[in-house]
């Protein structure tokens, strides 16, 4: 039990493998006649080769363009016509595909997923590749190049990890690399990474486990395993960046902003759980220290309920990020100094029991809310099975967060949030800077 009187339910799961290596996780929940179908492939942008950044994500787009028995446009058309909500995402450590459907359409979802897992190769055409390349390049323009502050994640990753590190480049990839991707590249990427023995399929909702398993066998059982899967590259990196790296970016932005990134322990380690709690104490919700000092008291930055957060990288190291948008008339230097004072107070001080209570309560609500939805729960099972080899870890995730102590928070803040372990990106308004052509001025301290 927690302070809020809520405890996380233990979800019963069936966790099996087909002969071809496909891991199948099933959790029955009959509250509504709906089932969430979720597949994680153990491939992301960290698997990309030099000169081919963005390939994992571009490939994700091609998975919607037709396969052996499904024509162009039909994947989305068929699923939307049965009321499904669906999408896919690519991130450094994964590519996931998911659709939530009324439960009497489970078989349609399985058929579509199996067809693109096993039957994409012959449907890939130069025309489809060129079309989706253009779409992805427009996604990059829309989300990064033509958006105020749009490039900050890409630049933090570039500076916070060593040259050539698997997390040093962005998932969206560079325009040049996207331009260079060939049909042979995507076919080879498919062959190496898209196979049943590199995937986890999770079903959560209104299904009968044994009947669902039989359907999974029917649709996926005939897809052979890949004999030479290519695993993730080594992401081992020193625990600290070892210096402060600063870059000022004059750009077409309305107000200055400061983005600070620290190299930190990866997701899945006990200290990453501490970072989850630390993020709430410092910058989560409206009762956080940063909200109190920088918004309510000093009025230096624009309000945010998530000033601090961490990327969920698992391979060697991750990134803890603080994100400060200056209020009008406030210089980035002033905002950064006030932020530094808040961090210093944490490192040099202690965390009060009420602060821990608040953080634990908010995290409890977050975890319970996320897992009570079929789609969030399905994604969590796929995630823990793919990244840590055990879907049942979902059931103990909240316990691990609640076990974090005030002393842990101070200890980890002290080791991670140091000036010689950080990148500071400062955006300053500059009307003359044409989008996409902003020149960064870099200083190492």
């Amino acid at each position, binding site marked *: 039990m927690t302070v*809020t009187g809520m405890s996380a339910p233990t979800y019963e799961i069936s966790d099996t493998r087909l002969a071809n290596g496909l891991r199948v996780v099933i959790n029955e929940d009959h509250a509504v006649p709906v089932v969430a179908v979720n597949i994680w492939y153990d491939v992301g942008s960290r698997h990309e080769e030099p000169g081919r950044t963005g390939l994992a994500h571009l490939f994700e787009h091609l998975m919607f363009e037709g396969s052996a028995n499904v024509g162009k446009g039909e994947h989305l*058309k068929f699923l939307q016509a049965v009321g499904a909500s669906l999408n896919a995402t690519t991130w450094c450590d994964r590519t996931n595909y998911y659709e939530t459907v009324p439960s*009497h359409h489970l078989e349609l979802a399985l058929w579509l997923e199996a067809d693109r897992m096993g039957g994409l190769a012959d449907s890939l055409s130069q025309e489809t590749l060129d079309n989706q390349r253009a779409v992805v390049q*427009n996604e990059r323009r*829309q989300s990064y190049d033509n958006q105020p502050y749009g490039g900050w994640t890409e630049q933090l990753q570039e500076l916070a990890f060593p040259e050539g590190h698997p997390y040093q480049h962005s998932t969206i990839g560079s325009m040049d690399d996207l331009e260079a991707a060939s049909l042979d590249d995507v076919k080879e990427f498919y062959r190496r990474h898209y196979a049943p023995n590199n995937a986890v399929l999770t079903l959560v909702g209104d299904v009968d486990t044994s009947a669902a398993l039989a359907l999974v066998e029917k649709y996926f059982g005939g897809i052979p395993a890949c004999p030479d899967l290519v695993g993730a590259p080594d992401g081992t990196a020193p625990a600290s960046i070892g210096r402060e790296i600063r870059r000022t970016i004059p750009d077409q932005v309305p107000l200055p902003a400061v983005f600070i990134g620290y190299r930190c322990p990866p997701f899945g380690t006990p200290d990453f759980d501490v970072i989850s709690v630390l993020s709430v104490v410092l910058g989560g919700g409206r009762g956080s220290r940063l909200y109190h000092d920088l918004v309510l008291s000093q009025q230096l930055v624009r309000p945010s309920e998530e000033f601090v957060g961490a990327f969920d990288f698992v391979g060697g190291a991750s990134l803890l990020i603080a994100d400060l948008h200056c209020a009008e008339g406030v210089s980035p230097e002033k905002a950064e100094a006030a932020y530094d004072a808040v961090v210093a107070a944490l490192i040099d001080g202690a965390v009060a029991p009420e602060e821990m209570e608040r953080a634990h309560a908010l995290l409890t609500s977050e975890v*319970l809310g996320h897992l009570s939805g079929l789609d969030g729960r399905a994604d969590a099972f796929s995630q823990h099975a793919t990244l840590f080899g055990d879907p049942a870890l979902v059931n103990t995730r909240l316990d691990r967060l609640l076990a974090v102590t005030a002393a842990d928070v101070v200890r980890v803040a002290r080791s991670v949030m140091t000036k010689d372990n950080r990148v500071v990106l400062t955006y300053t308004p500059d009307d003359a800077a044409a989008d996409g052509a902003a020149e960064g001025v870099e200083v190492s301290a």
Partner: protein
Amino acid sequence: MTVLVAERPGAGEPRPFRFPAFSRHAVAGGTVLACHLERRPIVSLSLVSRSGAAAEPSGAEGVANLTAQLLGQGAGGLDAHAFAVAGERLGASWFAAVGWDATQLGFDVPSAAVPAAAELLHHALASPTLDAEELGRLRDERLDDLMADAARPRTRALRELAAALWRSGSRYSLPQAGHAAGVSAVDIEAVRQWHDTRLLPGCAALVIAGDLTGLDIEAVGATVFSGWSGGAGEAAGTTSEPVQGGRRVVVVHRPGAVQSALAVGHSGPARGGEDEVALTTMQMALGGTFSSRLNYTLREKKGYTYGASAQYDLRRDAGIFVAQSEVKTEVTAPALTDAFAEITGMHDGGIRADELDDVRRQRIERYPLAFASPRGVAGALSEIVVYDLPDDYYDRQRERIAAVTKEEVDAAGRRHLRLDDLVTVVVGDADVVAEGLGDLGLGPVEVRADE
């Protein structure tokens, strides 16, 4: 060798689904709508008022939003920080949202903490501090928001479109969150006035959705409403007058922009029209789904964009139609040509049989997904409150969706797509795009500097 099942499987036997049953309670002068959702432990608890930005007085645009925000900045003797912490120690996250027609305030809160959160909500509504200094801070925050919104190409395009479609200075011509002059003019008196006339038990209801096991709903309602007095409140709504100026093009010049944000639209009908289901069916086929004509042509055939869509924003007294996309700068003119061709094609030729079938099925089958989560159900119940809908509205609506015909859809398209009134906004590099726009038949082109 790979063996796949070639045949597309059919559907299984559907489990019947109805909109989740909910109860109504009259408690302490207020109304409660409560819906139990099994194993949904994070409950949506909110006060829904029938007044939103559309009802704001001229010269104080932004007062609804500022008042809603200020209620959470101190109440019941707690200052802004203490109020935030009091909720968050319960695991409750506060939200205050203002739309054109409604205001919604409350918490997403663990089931067991609903009674305590209800007490905080009561304080925010009945005894807010309404501190002038806090209001000053919120005003500055909103002014920063307005600046940030204007910098985003898509938001900027929508803002310019609204300004072009409605008589200058009328409420719909200005952003929903207000404009700089309005926000700056909102003082504590204006806030008090709004609070005292627009946020009252008589023109609001408490909506609760989630796992309600063990909760005494009437007691929760009594906590929120007891001692919060006031009359029925003022009826909502000022009417904005549309501008009927024919086709024209406004280009907001952004030197060096690598994309153009496009918004094409005209003023539209109010909510609740007799042909609303036909209208929204047409809209989904035109630009409401991935497979819709606009997205399929501009994205999947041409590769001009990451996405294209079209919506009707149906408000209490009027609305707008808008088609949107962000396209690579160099293809701005051909993208607009294609978008106009799709809108015209739907107007002139109507919906195809396969489109009608897909949209109808999609909307019917979506029901159990749309009404599964506390937020989804709370949103649906809020619409019942705000627009005075009958309690069986959603189940009846599903029947109307199933029954809609091609003739009705096509008639709605001919009536509500007004080809001669389409105004086009382009936020992009005028040096590259403006010249080509004059020859497309979209009306006169005006280029403006980006302020």
